[in-house]
């Protein structure tokens, strides 16, 4: 199946990219690693007139450790991150989350920016053009029907990026650039929760940088992913947590972010309210896990059934918390 026709432009600088975006507006699409975009194109899920290739932007290919934390250019590949000693030693759970994405050769091509800007997925949508035609257009394609949720009135395609939940848990920020302005905002605010348009990027904007603050002493974090096979699969559910140990083994801060069980990464808000000052024990784990399950919004748009996915959010929450907590212990003693 050939790709649809498009014009291709490969800008040399970020500024030039912004100008091109401004010029071509709705007709343009950005191509980073292409591991997601090429598939959208092949399936005619996107039909841009102009594709702007970002691989020439060496200026967005950096990874540096500063005193505030890590800054990563959006064009850094997942493989570069995976092999970076800075991440391996400084952010081991991030390294392990990256290793769970796709399969190794795909990570050689995939970028961090592309991973964050992934379009939402749905088994009634991420199909060939022929397949979709046999069904008729769904909500996302301008039709009146949602095939995943009976009588559904809004698109519930799943945000399936693996890294955003963990990065949100770590309070990461993203830098966004257009010809007019630059803005930096918490990654948590980057997502819209709309299945058909998952992030807030305007047509003329580009994600340029991801900033991950230093984790303070006493902080531990982890990401747990649900999949059937040990590779190749988008998450059926993902749970990222960040936890801070306080005086005499109590919980000082907690953050739980769910991935792939809703139209955007979901922060389990109740978790943070409840528990400051409590002891980390099985009872509290149960509590968090229930809250996470309650917050999850899986619907029947993946091959794996949604009931199971919701249950697993509970299990993964406990596992992630245990691992994160163990990390706080390790860090304290070291």
């Amino acid at each position, binding site marked *: 199946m050939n790709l649809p026709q498009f014009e291709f432009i490969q800008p040399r600088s970020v500024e030039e990219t912004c100008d091109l975006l401004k010029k071509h507006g709705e007709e343009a699409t950005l191509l980073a690693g*292409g591991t997601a975009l090429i*598939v959208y194109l092949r399936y005619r899920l996107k039909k841009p007139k102009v594709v702007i290739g970002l*691989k020439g932007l060496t200026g967005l290919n950096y990874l540096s450790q500063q005193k505030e934390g890590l800054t990563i250019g959006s064009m850094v590949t997942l493989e570069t991150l995976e092999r970076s000693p800075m991440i391996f030693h400084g952010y081991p759970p991030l390294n392990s989350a990256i290793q769970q994405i796709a399969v190794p050769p*795909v990570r050689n091509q995939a970028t961090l920016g592309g991973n964050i800007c992934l379009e939402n997925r749905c088994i009634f949508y991420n199909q060939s053009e022929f397949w979709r035609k*046999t069904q008729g257009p769904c909500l996302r394609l301008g039709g009146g029907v949602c*095939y995943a949720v009976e009588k559904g009135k809004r698109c519930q395609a799943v945000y399936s990026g693996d890294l955003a939940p963990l990065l949100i848990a770590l309070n990461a920020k993203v830098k966004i650039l257009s010809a007019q302005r630059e803005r930096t905002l918490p990654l948590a605010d980057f997502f819209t929760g709309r299945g058909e348009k998952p992030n807030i990027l305007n047509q003329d904007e580009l994600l340029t940088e991801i900033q991950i603050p230093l984790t303070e002493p006493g902080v531990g974090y982890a990401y747990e992913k649900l999949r059937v096979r040990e590779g190749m699969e988008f998450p059926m559910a993902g749970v990222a947590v960040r936890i801070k140990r306080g005086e005499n083994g109590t919980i000082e801060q907690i953050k739980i972010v769910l991935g792939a069980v809703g139209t955007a990464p979901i922060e389990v808000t109740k978790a943070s309210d409840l528990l400051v000052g409590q002891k980390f024990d099985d009872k509290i784990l149960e509590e968090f896990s229930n809250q996470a399950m309650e917050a999850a919004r899986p619907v029947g748009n993946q091959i794996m059934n949604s009931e199971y996915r919701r249950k697993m959010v509970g*299990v993964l929450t406990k596992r992630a918390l245990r691992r994160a907590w163990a990390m706080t212990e390790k860090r304290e003693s070291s």
Partner: protein
Amino acid sequence: MEKISISLKINGRLETLEVVPYRTLLEVLREDLQLTGTKCGCEDGSCGTCTVLLNGDPIRSCLLLAVEAQGKEILTIEGLAQGEKLHPVQEAFVKHGGIQCGFCTPGMILTAKALLDKNPTPTEREVRQALSGNLCRCTGYTKIVESVMAASGQEVPSSRKEDFVSPYSVVGRRTTRFDSIPKAKGEAKYSADLYLPGMLYAKVLRSPYPHAKILNIDTSQAEKLPGVRAVITGKDALPYRWGVFSYTRDMQFLPTDKARFIGQEVAAVAAISEEIAQEAIDLIKVEWEPLPFVLDPEEALGEGAPQIHEDKPGNVSVRIFVNEGDVEKALFESYFVEEGRFSSPEESYCQTENYAVVANFDSTGLDIWCPNAGPHMKARPLSNALGIPTSDVRVRKINVGGHFGGRSEISPGDFIAALLSKKTGRPVKLVYTREENFNCVRQVHGSVTHCRVGVDREGKLTAVDMKVIMDGGAYASTGPIAASVAYIMIEGTYKFPNFRYEAIRSYTNKPPRGMYPHHPRTSYAALELLLDSLAEKLGMDPLEFRIKNAVHEGYITPTRTVITSCGEVETMRLASEKAGWKEKWGHLPPYRGIGMGCASMISGFPMGIRGGSAAFVRFNEDGDVIVISGVMDDGQGNDSMIAQIAAEELGVPLTKVKVITGDTSVTPSDQGAYSQASTLISGGAVKAAAADAKEQLLEVAAQMLETKKEGLVARDGMIFVKDEPERRVEISKVARKALAMNRAILGRGDRWPDADPSREWVKNPRGQIASAISFGTAVAEVEVDPETGKVKVLNMVAAHDCGYPINPMAVEQQIQRSAVEGGPQGVLMEKHLWTKRGQNLNANFIDYWFPLSIDVPHIEPIIVTSQDPFGPFGAKEGGLSVSVAMIGAMANAVRNAIGITPKELPITPDVVLRLLEEKRRGFYKEV
């Protein structure tokens, strides 16, 4: 669109090219540079066959625009060897059997090379991790991983293994398959790799309805599109219906009445490019009248269900019924009876090669290249459908990227390409997408099995009563065989004095289902799971229980097949010993489980006038041997197998033997690679032909040595007088001498199944079913995560009685792949889901859970011999019993781990978890 000039350094050479921006690197490599060693198996990043190294790193060339590779250094498989000299990774794949069909091989080898460049001595886990993005359907990954480990200089089991002790010079020895070098180098051509001068490209218009009447097809707009050369519909075809049997002719390759599943072919276009062909397809207007449809096989058989074929009332495609002894009475009198209902959805073959065909029709007839399991089996229906003599259909030899039953039959695509070529007078190529390969070739039956099994107080089986409903999809395909295999395998595995089996294969409005090694998987799982329940009730070890009920040489099955050679008990003993059964059974910690399953497999069943194989053996002037046989090699190694047999029989070294196979323009008829008959029948025919040639050689040699022919022996390239080895002459000289005497050495031989010709699948299921029966036992060990329900496979061991291994390495390959097919694929992971409208929801490798290298452990193969009296050198079949045996083993391992009998397959994590919860809530009693 304007082209962009790019220059790439490919395999060390600078290439400057003009490309349109929307072409991928894969397309440029394959189409513009004709570097077809890089394969295309999915185009969505999920298979890894398109892997190339970009500045040393493996990437998916299907996901990279060619323009983005500007200035980069690219290594494809063609650039790896230095001329004749293979790269060490290639060498290791060749030597250690890491190559079967070869379609995944270029990607595997390049990925492995990149790994070893960075990590010269990886652990097994690191290798599996690195290769986890490269799918392989043929090997079960074990020998691939071993090849990589060996390339890194580490010791691997297959290099440690003592050579099989063989009294022969060539047969029975671990032999490098000679298809493996061209495959390792990326030279081997598959159908989609062919580019003929003037070739057109075809696309197919498919039904968007599961069931709809075709009122009218308007092709006028499509015909007018510039670049279009032909448009065809059912009206252009002869009124021909295809069926494997005379009583199952229900399929028009391009239907004129109605479409019966989503994706069915209704029209096709040939144009000067694939883009134009697709554009033309979109211009064809079909007037449809949608009809009520049915997707569930049980509903389809129910009252008032939509009728799918007018002449098949009640949607019964096939009904098989055997009833031997008095099952009701025996069950009534049994000490224990266990029963259950087991269900599973359908699976897919997932050959890594997508179906592709190239057809070239001219005034002399048709040449056609396509993946097939038997060229002669394609030639006949093609000639009928095209209305030309069979001799004018030349199905040509080509490499095949996997079969597994899914390339058994003629495909509508073969006919479509042929008809388009006939109409245009030009070669036509049709290549399916991955989605089409899932839906529009064949699939594997979904099924429901209801089973009852009884035992007496001593643990002897008394009776089995099995009722199976199979979801056959829209057409009969190989239905009568498919609906019979379960009982045939089962009656050959255990002694059942009373035996009843009924299978109803129903039509549904889903893609048609064909042959598969282990369908219906529910039947084997049902029996083996119930056997373990019975063993438990009896307080017997499942191993002892199985040994007690195993069949033996001379045993006659309920439907009257005599077992002529049998190593079943030995497979049970050896597999369980290797797996540590005695230490583990009953002694594993919670949520760990071990399970066992056994199976028999038939080789060479009656196929009437097409059931036999014939072969010729001839000599070149230089003494080289050419074997000509209709056998087909789909990756299982049949070409090497017949070469070994010929070499052994003639007494020449293997290097002297070349083969010409699977080409209807040159090779005599052969039954094809179905019914596990290639070694037995095709190999037998080659042996006979070689023996015939040898007789002729000996006559000449006798004159040369001035002795009697009866006292001569041929071995290691020489003919010598039996007890006077110094009186000898080289065989090549004998062949040459014969020519000087104006006679050509030309051996001929044929072989036919030794089965009861009056046996018929439906009408007369009695009599000898096959020439030989092979046996296998599998043991699996698993660990279940009680919170997620995920099953981790810790160990798989499989023993197979192959009669005698012509090439032990090839038998191991078959055992290992069969183990993955039965276990991780069949029991743990694979299934299709459908929308309410009959659309396949997961016709891709991201959502269809095809096991990766990282999901399966090392598989320990054990070869058992039993010297079959019919088979060449005692050989039967090479490992398929394990696919069935592993179903039982894996299902029982899970049962043993969780203490509940699973009733649905695959036992995915959600299923396991549900069972555990039901158990906790007391729905199940502890077992």
